């Protein structure tokens, strides 16, 4: 955002600077206009700084918003997972409770059956005992009595086995019940823990949402401010254009005034095209165009930017050459562009080189086409960017249309 917006504003700034430089070169007599231009330049610089600061703040707000949105999304996902986990735990608890109820019911039934079986066994033992004491069966049939006693033993053994079986079943069920109770307790603890985690996540999400809302408000405010600044800059540009027209008009009048004496010696110099420059133009350095000329859509900020020049990516420290023959009109630092060099090619043609590390020429020094005028700064990534802008008659033109550049 900073780069894009800075580029837009810097374009206007460069134009203004160019005009500022042009003005003393073409009409040194119009001091009031020059003063006005300087004044406007100062205001433009100030506005540019404010705009740059606002853009930086907006960028920061957007970064925070993106970060916050990411956090909110992450929290939402974690909350969804947490809710899913809680739901699973609830289902598990429900299933465990059902099993627990069934097991408890089975234990109760087994206890009842056990009690009944024990009572029956005791009664059978009483019957057997009293029968034995009373000489149950027909004493005249000892074999039958012996058989009946055997059957009584079988009966008691079967009853005792039944009691033992029920006892074992009850013990197994009780063990199962204990296990289920332990499982329920563990699951309940886990549910409590997960619920706490869920509550924490929820509160964090709420907090993050509040923060996001703050960021949104801040962003809107900054966008509004930025819009206002852009409007101001546009107005400023119109002012600069007006001043530029005034300068041109004065130049034209000055040339007419001088025509009385030396009109035959020197014909009027009309604005020319870059293609008509003697020797043509050459690329300032070998590199790839990374930012094109004209209206471009910035996906980062979701805004449309009007580029007045191009940006060429080249190795760090690469030498920058003049695209054509001319005279250095300006060499100095411009906020947002670093060191800026402007070469006047005559006929209202200017070439602007921004983001330089060093200047190898001085203001007013004549340069030839291909002459090294500066160099790009160093960078940890090994790549640096040169800002190149061509202006003809006060209008920025696409450098790629006049210079063969690698796109």
């Amino acid at each position, binding site marked *: 955002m900073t780069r894009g917006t800075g580029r837009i504003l810097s374009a206007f700034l460069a134009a203004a600077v160019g005009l500022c430089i042009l003005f003393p070169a073409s009409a040194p007599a119009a001091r009031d206009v020059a003063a006005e231009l300087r004044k406007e330049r100062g205001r433009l610089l100030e506005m540019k700084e404010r705009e740059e600061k606002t853009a930086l703040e907006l960028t920061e707000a957007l970064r925070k918003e993106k970060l916050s949105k990411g956090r909110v999304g992450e929290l939402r996902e974690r909350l969804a997972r947490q809710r899913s986990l809680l739901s699973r735990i609830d289902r598990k608890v429900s299933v465990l409770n059902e099993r627990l109820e069934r097991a408890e019911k089975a234990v109760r039934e087994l206890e009842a059956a056990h009690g009944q079986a024990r009572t029956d066994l005791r009664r059978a033992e009483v019957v057997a005992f009293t*029968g034995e004491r009373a000489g149950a069966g027909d004493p005249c049939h*000892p074999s039958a009595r*012996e*058989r009946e006693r*055997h059957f009584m033993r079988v*009966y008691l*053994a079967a*009853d005792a086995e039944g009691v033992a079986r029920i006892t074992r079943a009850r013990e197994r069920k009780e063990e199962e019940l204990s296990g289920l109770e332990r499982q329920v307790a563990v699951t309940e603890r886990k549910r409590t823990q997960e619920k706490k985690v869920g509550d924490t996540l929820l509160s964090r999400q709420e907090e993050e949402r509040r923060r996001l809302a703050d960021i949104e408000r801040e962003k809107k405010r900054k966008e509004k401010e930025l819009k206002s600044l852009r409007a101001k800059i546009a107005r400023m540009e119109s002012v600069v254009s007006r001043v530029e027209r005034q300068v041109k008009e004065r130049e034209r009048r000055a040339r007419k005034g001088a025509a009385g004496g030396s009109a035959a010696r020197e014909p009027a110099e009309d604005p020319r095209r870059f293609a008509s420059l003697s020797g043509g133009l050459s690329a300032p350095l070998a590199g790839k165009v990374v930012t094109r000329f004209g209206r471009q859509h910035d996906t980062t900020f979701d805004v449309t930017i009007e580029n007045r020049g191009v940006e060429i990516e080249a190795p760090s420290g690469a030498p920058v050459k003049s695209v054509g023959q001319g005279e250095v009109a300006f060499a100095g630092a411009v906020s947002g562009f670093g060191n800026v060099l402007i070469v006047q090619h005559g006929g209202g043609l200017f070439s602007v080189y921004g983001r330089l590390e060093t200047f190898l020429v001085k203001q007013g020094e004549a340069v030839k086409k291909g002459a090294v005028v500066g160099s790009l700064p160093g960078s940890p990534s090994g790549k640096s960017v040169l800002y190149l802008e061509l202006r003809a008659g006060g209008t920025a033109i696409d450098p790629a249309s006049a210079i063969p550049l690698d796109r």
Partner: protein
Amino acid sequence: MSERPSLWWIDWRLSRPPLVRETIGRFLYFCLLGFALLSLLLSGGASRFLADRYAITAVLRAEVPPAGAEGLARKVAGLPPVRSAAYRDPEAAWAEFLRAYPGLDPLRGAGGNPMQGYIEIRIRPDRLTGADVDLVTSALRSVPLVEQVLAGDEWLPRLLRAGRLASLACWGIFGAFLAGFFLVGRLQERARALALAGDFAFLAERGVPARRLAFFRAAAAAVSGFLLAAAGTAAGGGALFLSLRKFPFLEGAIGPPSDLLLPRTIAAVALFSCGAALLSAAASLLGWRAARSVRK
């Protein structure tokens, strides 16, 4: 020509009324003895009674099917000492158990019937001995279908000993009655000899030897004794037959009426009649001798 008088039935001709009384008495006595004799012959003393109450129980395993149990019962019934072998299924065992221990049925409402089926084996009365019982039980124990054999190992020897004693007692009583018959008969013969002593002296004076007289008297007593014993035993047998028919429960102790017509029973009756004849003859001789000694 001198005609020698017949000495056959001399007593009958000399003293008819007392002899009729004695004959009636002896017949009735032989009826009683015949009844007792046939009862003892049929029952074998206490053997039939005990055999009717004693049974070997072969408890089968729970998984034995009814068809297998029936087959095993048939095989067991083929053993020589065995009178009968009957299979009782678990339901019958359960019913029998509940009859012995009423009130247990509702206690096993959910438990079902825990009893196994069994085979009840009864021994022939004449084979109710320890050896025969051992033979049957050892045969049963070797069968895999049989889980347990209940043969009264604890009380069977006592039962058999009691049975032997009871049989001896019965036969002893019978023998005592026979001895009583003999003694009474001797007394009667002596009394009659004394009563007819004058007549016998008259005959002796006319050349009838006393020895011959005694012989004929003994012979007549033997014949009458045989006939009376046979008739009395037959009458007693008839009474026994009627009793057994009228009171079937007696069959358990005595035996079926049909056994009365078995050859061995008839032979035993004939032997008894012969014995009675001998006893009658002996009583006559001894009574004669006792009367002679009194006269001297």
